[in-house]
């Protein structure tokens, strides 16, 4: 009995570290969405591609809004979204903005989607090429009932032509691994 207690005490720090590691262990991953995969919100939007595949909307276009779904691993895989980032070009007086939204509905009853704004990134100034990123820690465990979307706005009250564009948007996330510390504890040390 005394031997067992001593033995356990000896392994306690290692067990503690192992438990912490396994409980928080996650697999880092990311998806990049090409700006040309964004869909204009209205069918009459006038848009084009400049430079190396940069999406812009033409001056005079009736709309400057675009949308794309974030292709995340399927439910019930759980994720922690860690970063939203955007690249593009901005030599205009207006700015570009990309927002990460979540839309949820009841699973088995008709309901209006409920939007949650998760975070937003964008350009500022007019220095040319830009990069912006937002760090966050947002748990995704609801993809049975929710979808994750990117909304892009090129300009404020209209479009700015090729002077304002987006190249790509990146979403970084960790795939949450289910803790296995208890199994290791029992099999490796208790049994």
């Amino acid at each position, binding site marked *: 009995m005394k031997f067992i207690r001593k033995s356990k005490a000896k392994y306690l720090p290692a067990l503690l570290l192992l438990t912490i590691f396994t409980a928080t262990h996650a697999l880092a991953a990311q998806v990049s969405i090409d700006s040309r995969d964004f869909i204009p919100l209205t069918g009459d939007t006038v848009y084009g591609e400049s430079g190396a595949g940069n999406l812009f909307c033409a001056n005079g276009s009736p709309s400057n809004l675009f949308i794309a779904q974030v292709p995340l691993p399927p439910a019930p895989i759980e994720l922690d979204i860690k970063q939203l980032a955007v690249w593009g070009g901005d030599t205009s007086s207006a700015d570009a903005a990309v927002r990460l939204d979540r839309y949820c509905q009841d699973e088995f009853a008709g309901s209006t989607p409920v939007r949650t704004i998760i975070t937003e990134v964008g350009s500022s100034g007019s220095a040319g090429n830009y990069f912006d990123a937002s760090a966050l820690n947002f748990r995704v465990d609801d993809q049975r009932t929710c*979808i994750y979307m990117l909304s892009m706005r090129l300009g404020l009250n209209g479009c700015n032509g090729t002077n304002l564009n987006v190249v790509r948007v990146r979403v970084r996330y960790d795939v949450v691994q289910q803790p296995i510390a208890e199994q290791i504890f029992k099999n490796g040390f208790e049994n």
Partner: protein
Amino acid sequence: MTFKQQKTVRYSMLALCLALSLDALATGDKVRLSNDEIRALGEDPQSGEFFRLSLDQDSVNADQSAPSGGAGVLYTSIAASEFRPRSDRGLFNVPNHASLICQIGGTNSLAEAQLQLPQDATLQFLRIYANDSGVENLNVALVERCQPNTAAGNVTTTVLASVLTSGTPGQLTQSISFPAATTINNTLCIYSMRVQFANTANGCAANLLLDKARVQWIE
């Protein structure tokens, strides 16, 4: 005829009967579409073969009573804004919430989104989230299009499952089961979700909106 010859004939006939019945079973799951049905899908009857799988009407909303989740049960949702109109792009809009509508006045009511699932995934349920406040109805289908593995050939199109709304329920969600053992074959086929914003493929009806479509599958 010797006894041995009689035995051979008997076994041959047995094998023939067995083969015929197996063939009947294999094609019995599929219903060939009429030319009118094919045209209603917006397709050309001359462009290939068209089928649909036999649907059990008891399978409507069966996922509500099915065991929830479980090992290997996965869910993939496609936002309606991801659907590409087959034509008349100018008449399709995303009014809000990543949903999709189609305005009256065009000649096309169809939009499609490709579905990427792993090889051999077994399809379980197709569920849609939509709004039907119109006189006509919304039809969302999962369509399989197959061609020979390494040879040129016409496309064989099969509607694996479809959800058809009815009445004017407003905001709704509705599902249908896939027939048992409906599996993904990425070697021969591509898979698309298809929405039709009217009772026919020609022109859109008013007050129909799709929010998203969800496929439940087993890896």
